[in-house]
């Protein structure tokens, strides 16, 4: 008896039972696909004599003279002479043999050293072939290139037989097999002899599902409700999954993942000086993605809109929001036309079909059955779609501010017009034939004027981008009115035209292996239809595999953006195909796919398996999915999670992008982050964020100390700790509240002990350290010293102005003995009028220590004034150093070889103006205190110079500590 995992899965499983194994592609199609090698003369049966002739007379000649350079994928000019197909295909430039007229073959001319233009003399190295050998070659060509058939047909890596180009074959899942995913996974496990893990507990599942579907941590109450739900897991769990799939945050999480594929950025890339780099309306694409995913727009339509929305959206409808979908193409990085087109081909095919079509730009794909001609067929589609337009899809926020903006914009525009008018007038006189044709006249503008024009336009664009006042607009592409034909660029060189490349689809993904020429405009919409054609063997496999990777950390095919010969094979091909087929059968619904995956026992496994050791021996990479792969939160999950648990995450959806990693720290979700394509803040990539220059398959997963520096030291993370502390300040059981907030879980007894001991130690330590001017061992101020007792009166400076500590807000203070007192980061300082207003650096020992003091007081006003008097003192030892810096000298060494000092006791480093004369007393002193036992790093004034302490509170430090634990940062 079939045991469905959930009630809604039932109909699907029924479908399966009814023999749902019909493949996408018919047998005829498959046959046609296999004989794709168009233009190849049908291979006749060669006689044994002919083959014998080849083996004895030809093969040795090839081996001795040709194959060193013309064999395999690195062949010169792309000419491969080590197999028959290579002879037929010729070089990257042309055919080299003529089967009808063998003597006219280019190859024969080459070995004859004919001297004909463009025909090199071959072989390049070694001797010219003797005439009789050439004769034999000619004969052999005339025979139709006899070559043992087995060498061709048994080639294990025949690209056309490669798994990814075969039709999707959905195997029927037998009745009683349980969840189909588990059926396939367990079958593979059983075969290999590994055992799956048990189902994770409800807490773990809840947290895992929240991060997976919403990118956010769960709430304590919700987790509790789920744990306490008396319903059977088979009911309670799918209900929770459905609940999460209904959240608007779902779209925010999954849009960001797709944005990796779409190499989303808010800037175009590198631009010369004066030009605006921002797209201005890039965010409308991101907002479209969020809405489309929340509404569960079927994936085929999801793609159609992204490729050709302007041809699908009814011009009459007022709702134009789907136009923004074209951002998938239009937000490509800037560059030459060729680079833009190449990027669009690459993003399209790597992104939606896991094909590296761009590899066929300069030569036929070295591994996959994709020809250069096919590359240029697709290139030609984008070539005819280069016109960018920005139709309005939203409403402006009318009001006085908007009016002000319009006035400002008009002013900027007027500047351009006023500049351009006389320039164009002049040009019209120079080119009377172009009079009245503004577009053409502009191209005639001189370099200097063009530079000015660019700057003025840049100013206008910057004004628009900065203001954020324009209504939402879509960045769309339009087809050229009259399409132009694209030729092959031989070896990628635009000046070497090859065959015409008609706009059409890839043969390997076309029905029957035979693409039809596209008829409408650029062919972009037709191309999109070919991509989502249910018989296309790659599109559905690609998306289910990516979704799988986003849920499990690795795809069923690990090279998620390369299903070609160079990519990995699927770990579980039957599962991949079953999923791909199921997905299409289920209306390309991504939400249904998520539901299917999350309700499988495979997804619900624990991240630990008692049979770990045994399983590891068989499958150390967990390709058979015998446990859930524990993963660190991605940058977005981590940042949003921190904001969310601190109760600080903004619920605001959509709109212009915001800078997230620089102060003032935004509380918006990370999906709204402003992505600067050219100069991305390095923290993004330190956390393995995708490279916004090109489509990303799988993000790397690295662990580097820069990540920990961020979570430990970045004020954003510390702020969230303090927010958490503030929110729980009035709670009786603060530890419990913090744990509930951060982990959605009550603390264990041991957690409580750690918390209590941390807070009490932290507070005691803070008290012991006393109120500190800075967060370092150093304080800066002024005062006086009793030279006999060593007792110091120390007044810390109260003002931190322009990176320096000083007495008042102003400096110097008028007619005040404290007038010039200050210290800056380089140890530049100045005492007050008399010894009573000496400048003092205080250093407090963090432990009982034996230290040495080094450094020198430097003075630039050599020969002027009366010098300064330098003293060093501690309470217990009194004055240990007292010398005058001679006004004739520039420097005084202040070295104390050894000084014993108790914990929390201070060393005072003092500069007295000397004999009440403070003229020319600007000095620089960068004292260095070293632990003679070498347990502590050195303390140095300049190196650790800092502003006022804004110390973390004990509970804030505790909460921030929780945000730094693996418990928070990992999904189990």
């Amino acid at each position: 008896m079939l045991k469905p995992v959930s009630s809604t899965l039932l109909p699907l499983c029924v479908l399966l039972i009814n023999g749902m194994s019909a493949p996408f592609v018919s047998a005829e199609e498959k046959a046609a696909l296999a004989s794709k090698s168009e233009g190849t003369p049908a291979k006749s049966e060669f006689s044994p004599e002919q083959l014998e002739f080849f083996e004895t007379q030809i093969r040795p000649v090839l081996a001795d003279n040709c194959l060193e350079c013309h064999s395999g994928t690195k062949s010169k000019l792309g000419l491969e002479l080590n197999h028959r197909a290579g002879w037929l295909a010729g070089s990257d430039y042309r055919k080299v043999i003529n089967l009808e007229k063998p003597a006219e073959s280019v190859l024969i001319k080459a070995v004859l050293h004919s001297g004909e233009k463009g025909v090199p003399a071959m072989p390049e190295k070694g001797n010219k072939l003797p005439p009789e050998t050439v004769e034999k070659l000619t004969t052999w060509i005339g025979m139709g290139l006899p070559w043992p058939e087995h060498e061709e047909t048994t080639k294990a890596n025949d690209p056309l037989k490669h798994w990814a180009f075969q039709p999707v074959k959905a195997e029927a899942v037998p009745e009683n097999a349980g969840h189909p995913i588990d059926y396939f996974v367990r079958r593979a496990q059983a075969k290999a002899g590994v055992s799956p893990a048990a189902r994770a507990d409800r807490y773990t599942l809840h947290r895992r599902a929240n991060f997976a579907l919403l990118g956010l941590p769960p709430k304590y109450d919700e987790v509790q409700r789920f744990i306490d739900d008396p319903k059977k897991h088979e009911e309670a769990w799918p209900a929770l999954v459905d609940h999460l799939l209904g959240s608007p945050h779902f779209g925010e999480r999954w849009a960001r993942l797709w944005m990796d594929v779409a190499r989303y950025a808010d800037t175009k890339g590198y631009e010369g000086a004066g030009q605006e780099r921002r797209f201005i309306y890039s965010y409308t694409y991101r907002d479209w993605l969020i809405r489309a995913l929340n509404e569960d727009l079927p994936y085929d339509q999801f793609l159609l809109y992204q490729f050709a929305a302007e041809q699908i959206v009814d011009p009459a409808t007022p709702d134009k929001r789907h136009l923004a979908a074209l951002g998938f193409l239009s937000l490509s990085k800037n560059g030459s036309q060729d680079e833009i087109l190449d990027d669009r081909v690459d993003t399209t095919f790597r992104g939606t079909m896991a094909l590296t079509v761009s590899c066929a730009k300069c030569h036929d794909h070295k591994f996959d059955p994709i020809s250069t001609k096919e590359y240029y067929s697709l290139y030609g589609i984008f070539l005819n779609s280069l016109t960018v337009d920005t139709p309005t899809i939203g409403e402006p926020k009318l009001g006085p501010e908007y009016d002000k903006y319009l006035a400002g914009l008009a002013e900027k525009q007027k500047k351009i017009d006023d500049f351009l008018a006389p320039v164009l007038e002049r040009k019209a006189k120079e080119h009377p034939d172009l009079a009245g044709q503004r577009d053409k006249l502009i191209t005639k503008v001189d370099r200097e004027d063009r530079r000015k024009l660019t700057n003025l336009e840049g100013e206008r664009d910057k004004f628009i981008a900065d203001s954020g006042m324009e209504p939402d607009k879509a960045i769309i592409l339009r087809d050229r009115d009259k399409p132009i034909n694209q030729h092959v660029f031989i070896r990628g060189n635009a000046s070497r035209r090859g065959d015409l490349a008609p706009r059409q689809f890839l043969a390997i993904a076309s029905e029957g292996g035979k693409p039809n020429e596209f008829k409408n405009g650029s062919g972009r919409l037709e191309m999109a239809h070919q991509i989502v054609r249910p018989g296309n063997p790659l599109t559905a496999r690609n998306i289910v595999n990516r979704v799988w990777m986003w849920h499990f950390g690795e795809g069923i095919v690990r090279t998620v953006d390369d299903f070609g010969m160079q990519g990995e094979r699927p770990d579980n091909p039957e599962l991949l195909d079953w999923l791909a087929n199921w997905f299409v059968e289920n209306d390309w619904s991504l939400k249904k796919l998520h539901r299917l995956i999350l309700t499988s026992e495979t997804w619900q496994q624990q991240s630990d398996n008692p049979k770990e050791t045994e399983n590891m021996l068989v499958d150390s990479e967990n390709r058979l999915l015998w446990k859930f792969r524990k993963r660190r939160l991605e940058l977005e999950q981590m940042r949003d999670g921190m904001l969310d648990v601190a109760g600080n995450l903004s619920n605001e959806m959509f709109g212009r992008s915001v800078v997230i990693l620089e102060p003032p720290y935004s509380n918006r979700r990370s999906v709204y982050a402003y992505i600067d394509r050219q100069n991305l803040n390095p923290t993004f990539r330190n956390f393995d964020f995708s490279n916004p220059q090109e489509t990303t398959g799988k993000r790397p997963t690295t662990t580097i100390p820069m990540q920990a520096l961020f979570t430990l030291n970045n004020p954003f993370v510390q702020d969230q700790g303090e927010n958490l502390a503030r929110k729980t300040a009035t709670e009786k059981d603060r530890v419990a509240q913090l744990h509930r907030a951060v982990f959605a879980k009550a603390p264990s007894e041991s957690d409580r002990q750690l918390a209590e001991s941390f807070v009490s130690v932290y507070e005691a330590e803070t008290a012991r350290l006393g109120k500190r001017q800075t967060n370092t061992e150093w304080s800066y101020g002024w005062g006086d010293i009793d030279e006999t007792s060593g007792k110091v009166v120390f007044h810390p400076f109260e003002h931190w102005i322009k990176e320096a500590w000083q007495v008042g807000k102003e400096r110097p203070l008028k007619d005040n003995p404290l007038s010039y007192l200050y210290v800056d980061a380089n140890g530049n300082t100045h005492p007050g009028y008399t010894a009573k207003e000496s400048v003092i650096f205080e250093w407090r020992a963090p432990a009982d220590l034996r230290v040495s003091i080094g450094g020198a007081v430097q003075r630039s006003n050599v020969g002027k004034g009366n010098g300064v008097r330098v003293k060093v003192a501690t309470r217990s030892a009194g004055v240990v150093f007292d010398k005058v810096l001679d006004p004739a000298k520039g420097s005084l060494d202040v070295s104390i070889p050894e000084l014993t000092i108790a914990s929390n006791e201070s060393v005072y480093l003092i500069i007295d103006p000397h004999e009440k004369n403070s003229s020319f007393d600007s000095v620089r002193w960068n004292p260095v205190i070293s632990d003679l036992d070498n347990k502590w790093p050195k303390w140095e004034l300049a190196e650790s110079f800092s502003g006022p302490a804004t110390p973390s509170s004990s509970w804030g430090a505790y909460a921030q500590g929780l945000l730094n634990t693996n418990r928070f940062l990992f999904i189990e």
Partner: protein
Amino acid sequence: MNGFTSRRQFLQRTGMGMGALGLSPFLSSLQGSDRSLNPLAPGKTHFSPRAKRVIHIFANGGPSQVDSFDYKPALEKYDGKEMPGEGLKTERKTGALMKSPFNFSQHGECGLWASDLFPKVAAMADDLCVINSMYANVPNHEPSLMLMNTGAERVNLVRPSVGSWVTYGLGTENENLPGFVSLCPGGVPVVETQNWRSAFLPGAYQGAHIDTKNTQISKLIPDIRNPRMPKELQRRQLELIQEMNRQDAEGNAIDPAAEARMHSLELAYKMQIEASDAFNVEREPAHVRELYGDTLHGRQMLIARRLVERGVRFVQVWHGDGQPWDSHSEIAKGHGKLAKEADQPIAALLFDLKQRGLLEDTLVIWGGEFGRTPTVELPTPGANDANTKLGRDHNHHGFSMWMAGGGVKGGMQYGKTDEFGFKAVENPMHVHDLHATILHLLGFNHEKLTYRYAGRDFRLTDIHGHVVDDLIA
């Protein structure tokens, strides 16, 4: 993979009690074994390397070869005269040949002809391996910078930088510091951070840009300082975090990712100290600081030495933001000032590396993205002001660079330009050849140091590059 099922079992077998503080020795085996978790773990070279680290001094903007290391007496003879023969295309219009405003003389035992532009560097002639026959593809800054730094000149074809490749290949010897550091005072050069980006290589290999105009460590490396906790308190916080991590890991199978993160927390804590130390030239004795000079360039060259000494793999030292060496006009003044800033610090670096025995396996490279024309630049409306005089235009046809240490021959001059120093004619060495040679010195076959991305095995030299054996000692 290890055969230990649980932490407990592991610790029992290694004789450690469960209460043991500090990190498990498991982590030391993690380093070097699993580069996906620890991308900076030391990598394996293809053969025994001659150099273990690189300092690339980038004279961005294009320093003139005929005014520095490529002596052309013919320029004096033909000064003010039309260049005989066919002219070469450069970015802007140039006129007659122009002699160098600097004086040339011979230096060292090798008798290197060099101008008085870099007198102190020239005095190290016997350590220099001067390449006079460098050439690139186009006379424009952006593509030439990209070519020199990434091997791919198209500005929008974003490829990993040389430093990223080297760090990918070699990892780092000191995890408390970034593996690849780019020192550039005052901002960024042309094409900006793309000069040190890791592109499709993981972010761990991107260059850490450090604006050496700042002197405060907290401004040099983001998040290097905890602004709100003295170190004693921070240590307490770290102990709390690690104790919770340890307790959570107890009884479970060893999870490499979680262990790696615990390790990285400790590294980060140490980095706060170590990085401060590395960038703090005040720690150097006075005589060393004097050797380099108390200037911006002296300081950053000294930082470069402190970094490589501490195991950083690749340090790039830029002259400044923008393109300072771009002397389209008044080259005597422009180059004179720039060289004055750089000469002593560079010579000090070479001398200092040598006296510490570091030069042996540290490859020092000096040069720009291209050189300059031996002809004088003519005023171009819109491109430069009408007062332009006595400057030189960009020249990619032939220019000079030098290398020192790290397995290259000292006292060597390689290749030649034509009579006037315009075009490389003898043993021309393309930028790809330079890259191939650099990788070779570091122990890599440039054709085999690859990274699989988008269905292809990418490499720094793409399909080009030849190792120039003549330069190798």
